[in-house]
């Protein structure tokens, strides 16, 4: 807990409640029983910022939406009057029930740029908890707002925020497939690739600069690596048969892939530039959906070697496979959590496909959703939320659930079918 020393006691216990996992020693001793995310959210007021009204309003509304969506905060109305970062008028906010206040200002600078300053206050203890200033253009309002949200989230919860991260996903609309990149809140979507043929399995390189994905534009599945800045891409695997399920090694140098050049789907590794193919494992069954553990030592994958699709793991250097899932007859799409302690996957329960999390130490599993057609779970880099694809009203949508199942979100609805989400890494 970097900043725990200046936490007020009341907030402190609330944070401990919200933290749930109580992985941080300072908070572990204060942990209280959780009855639901709603009861333990931190009451926070995000005031209208002073200064440039239009920019300030746009910015503050994004900060509010970020914090509220996280499920960790309850927004308290800060009143009609803008409050700048230097204000110390705590009494009113205290009476409104706020434990924390975000206040700030936006001033216009030369050549259409802005300077935004904000400060986070502890209303109860009546002290400032810190602040930042950013110079930005009108086009960077969203980015700036997400940075403020990240700052607030980290100060108050002790864990890193993911509001500045990005997600990749595929939108299908009338015979057209678009690989899109958006902010973690679904805003600011941009198309990286449009195709008349399907695109599946996008996945971020560990440094966030590239996506690997499978495209069917050559009438069969071929793996590409796509540089997001230059827009250039290269073929990473195009062997005879099908090429699919790319997964980056933690150092970003290799991809675990599934090839069928020697028959049915099997695990291989290739360098990210497409060179140096080697076999990772050998079986007489389907082996697919490889994923490296965060330390790179282990590869989780799906195999039907036992008669039904189940999750297994092997050392990334090879060796015998160890079965991980035993409950039910359909467990697929393993995704290790960023701390390597849990595994998210999709299990079939009474014909419903649902995002599930297993504690790898205890092997206890928890079904996180009550939906029916969940696919493609992907952890946020802080491990708090899992984004996944599901179906609502006959359409593909993206949803997110906290790793403990308590907080649920549906991402802003876009046109068409949305699927194949992949949560990007932290932004440097």
């Amino acid at each position, binding site marked *: 807990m970097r900043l725990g020393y200046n936490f007020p006691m009341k907030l402190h216990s609330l944070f401990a409640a919200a933290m749930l996992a109580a992985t941080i020693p300072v908070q572990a001793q204060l942990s209280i029983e959780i009855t639901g995310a709603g009861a333990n959210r931190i009451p926070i007021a995000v005031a209208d910022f002073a200064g440039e009204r239009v920019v300030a309003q746009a910015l503050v509304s994004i900060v509010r939406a970020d914090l509220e969506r996280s499920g960790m905060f309850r927004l308290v109305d800060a009143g009609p009057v803008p409050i700048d970062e230097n204000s110390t008028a705590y009494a009113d906010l205290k009476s409104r029930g706020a434990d924390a206040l975000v206040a700030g200002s936006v001033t216009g600078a030369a050549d259409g740029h802005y300077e935004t300053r904000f400060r986070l206050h502890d209303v109860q203890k009546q002290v400032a908890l810190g602040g930042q200033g950013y110079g930005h253009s009108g086009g960077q309002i969203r980015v700036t707002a997400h940075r403020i949200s990240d700052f607030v989230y980290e100060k108050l919860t002790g864990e890193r925020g993911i509001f500045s991260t990005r997600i990749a996903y595929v939108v299908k609309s009338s015979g057209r497939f678009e690989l899109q990149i958006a902010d973690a809140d679904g805003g600011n979507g941009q198309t990286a690739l449009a195709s008349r043929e399907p695109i599946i399995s996008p996945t971020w390189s560990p440094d966030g600069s590239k996506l690997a994905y499978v495209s069917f534009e*050559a009438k069969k599945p071929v793996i590409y690596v796509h540089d997001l800045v230059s827009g250039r891409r290269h073929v990473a695997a195009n062997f005879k048969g099908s090429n699919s399920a790319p997964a980056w090694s933690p150092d970003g140098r290799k991809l675990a892939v599934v090839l*069928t050049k020697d028959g049915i789907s099997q695990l291989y590794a290739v360098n990210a530039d497409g060179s140096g193919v080697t076999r990772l494992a050998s079986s007489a069954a389907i082996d697919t959906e490889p994923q490296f553990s965060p330390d790179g030592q282990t590869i989780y994958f799906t195999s039907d070697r036992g008669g039904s699709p189940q999750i297994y793991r092997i050392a990334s250097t090879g060796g015998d496979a160890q079965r991980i899932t035993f409950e039910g007859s359909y467990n697929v799409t393993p995704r290790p959590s960023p701390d390597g302690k849990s595994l998210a996957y999709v299990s079939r329960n009474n014909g419903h*496909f649902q995002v599930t999390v297993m504690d790898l130490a205890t092997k206890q599993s928890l079904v996180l959703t009550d939906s029916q057609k969940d696919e493609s779970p992907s952890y946020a880099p802080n491990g708090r939320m899992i984004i996944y694809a599901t179906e609502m009203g006959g359409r593909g949508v993206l949803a997110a659930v906290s790793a403990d199942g308590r907080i649920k979100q549906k991402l802003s609805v876009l046109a068409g079918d949305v699927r194949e989400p992949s949560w990007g890494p932290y932004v440097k």
Partner: protein
Amino acid sequence: MRRTLIAAPLILLLAACGSQPPAPEQNPSGVENREPKAIGGDAESVNRDAIDPYALEALKDPKSILAKRSIYFDYDQYVIKPEFQPLIDAHAKFLVKNSKIKMLIQGNADERGSREYNLALGQKRAEAVKRALGMLGAREEQIESVSLGEEKPRCTDHSDECWAQNRRGDVLYTGEF
């Protein structure tokens, strides 16, 4: 219509000789991406062992069993059911007889469950068809088996009948993919 059907492979053969680009009206994506490599050989060998246009026409004859191109599978299965054995026999015979022709087998899966696992399932179905053809004398180099997984459904409803139609292996010949 008949003329175009015959013309496609012939033009591809010419393209393989390097003397003429593929005709633009012949489905450019398939032609450009795959055909020249798939046929291979120099002009002489192509002339000596050309694909018999009449044999290719037989592929399209609705009365011929060769016009049947789909093998259907049960849920989560990749075993070829006995009812499809005559179809496999006929296509194997055709491949043996026309050793220059190439085949692409596309495996498919219904939409339920993981896309990547379904891709693997489609691959296993395509591979099952490939092996069955191989046992009857078709050469390894003649056939490529790939999977489209659940990505290219023939039927898009969410029903048992529809899913049954999508659990399928399709065979395509030179000029058709």
